């Protein structure tokens, strides 16, 4: 096995609803989906975001399109125009999530 950034096997987009941020994460190939499902758990994502996410993280699975929706509560420092952060609407949070490391087979060309 080798370790790569999630960005090598997935892509995604993120946005806001108030102080909640969601990250839609999509496997780049169907065979990557179970790897992400096994390794990128809600608990891991919560730990990854650290003090950026003050609330719960929930993961919803969409196996038919090989995708996941991660919902991060209290993750935008108040959100919208209330936050002192830079990315107050979580537009770049999917990219931040892409930094998570995953173990993949050595022969995957990723």
């Amino acid at each position, binding site marked *: 096995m080798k370790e790569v950034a999630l960005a090598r096997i997935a*892509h*995604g987009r993120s946005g806001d609803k108030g*102080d*909640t941020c969601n990250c839609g994460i*999509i496997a780049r190939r169907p065979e990557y989906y179970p790897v992400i499902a096994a390794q990128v758990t809600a608990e891991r994502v919560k730990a990854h975001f650290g*003090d950026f996410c003050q609330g719960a993280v929930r993961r*919803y699975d969409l196996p038919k399109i090989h995708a996941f929706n991660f919902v991060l509560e209290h993750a935008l420092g*108040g959100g919208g*125009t209330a936050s002192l952060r830079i990315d107050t609407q979580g537009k770049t949070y999917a990219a931040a999530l892409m930094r998570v490391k995953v173990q993949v087979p050595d022969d995957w060309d990723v």
Partner: protein
Amino acid sequence: MKTIRIGGALGYWGDRTDALADLLGGGPLDYVIMDYLAEITMSILQKQRQKDPRLGYAHDFVPLVKSVLPLLRRSGARLIADAGGLNPLGCAVAVVAASGDAGQPDWRVGVVYGDDVMPHLDRLAREGIDLRHFETGASQREIPGPIVSANAYFGAFPIAEVLGRGAEVVVTGRVNDAALALGPMIHEFGWRADQCDLLAKGTMAGHLLECGGQASGGNFNGGWREVPRLVDLGFPIGEVAEDGSLVVTKHPDQGGLVTPAVLKEQLLYEIGDPSAYIVADVTCDITELEMEDLGNDRVRVRGVRGHPPTSSYKVSMSYEGGYQISVGLVYTWPDCVAKARAAAELLLGRLKKLGLAYRDHRVSIFGYDAVHGDMSRRVEDPDEVYLRVSFLVDDAATADRISREMVTHILCGVPTACGLEPGRGSPHRQIVYWPSLVPKSALGPAVALKGGAE
């Protein structure tokens, strides 16, 4: 089977405006939708209306419509936009006046309004309806500042109603974004309020179109290098049939990309539980949704299911908080991160010495870890960084004094600093979002027709 083509021409107030003419001129379309209203847009419009009661809508929508009126007539497409904001009637009257100026005085402009909850706040309170924060459950009475705006999210049936009365342009206040597209489907296909699967299919079609270019290659994280010609990005088009089946595409001779990967990013954009995506008309379940690449920028979407709607409208409220001010300077090699940190400490020390109090602050070092904090790689000893320190304070005067203090760092502070932009930053009033629910029995939409039929 009857099929209609709906284009998504605008994703927020500030998005590309030339996309509208490109959509109308690039090929056949039956409807074009434009979504102006983000969560915070209503509070901006409220401030404009406070200054002038004739305002409160997306004012640049009016000259934009005027510029495309001949193109609209030629194409036969009808235009539906939530540009009405807090003053849909005022916006509609302005569109009618502009069409007269353009020599097309017989335009019929439909209006959907009644979503403004502000006039109802006292009555709702008397009736014992508490607009609780729907995430925290906190009572409306705990809102710590003056309420600036409160709007209910209406559904698509009132849009269908004014289309049925012959409106060629429809202007709404706050509606579910996807309702802009569902309205014409209800009108064209005669879908009923109890046909939940159809309403859900139409809603998800609208969801894919409501953010404009994000569904045709804009902001595409899955392969931005592969997107052709963002310079003339073709905005997305939904081909919807009366059984709710959907193909998303774009005009063939324009830039952009429509693939399953592109549409999956938009499908998941700003949603919560995919088994219960709630809008006023229906609750959508996309857990069984599938996409099929038909090639040539055509993607079939199927598998959306619907369940009956809830008994509430979502209400988006906002209130005024404190004042925010951001100050900063650029620091260069060597040791620019250490310099930026020292400058932030110096600023905080000076504020303490001057007796300037603040409620909250945040130190951000761009080029190092400003956006993603502890998740960043934190490359040591970069060539340059930008220090930004943001404050939340009680009043504009304090914000201004903090802004002035940062300027003194040029001569009295840590070395190798320069400004990023000319001038000082100015404070802005913090607008805090308060999402809530209101029973559908407590208020409802109204419709009107302006122009031609009058």
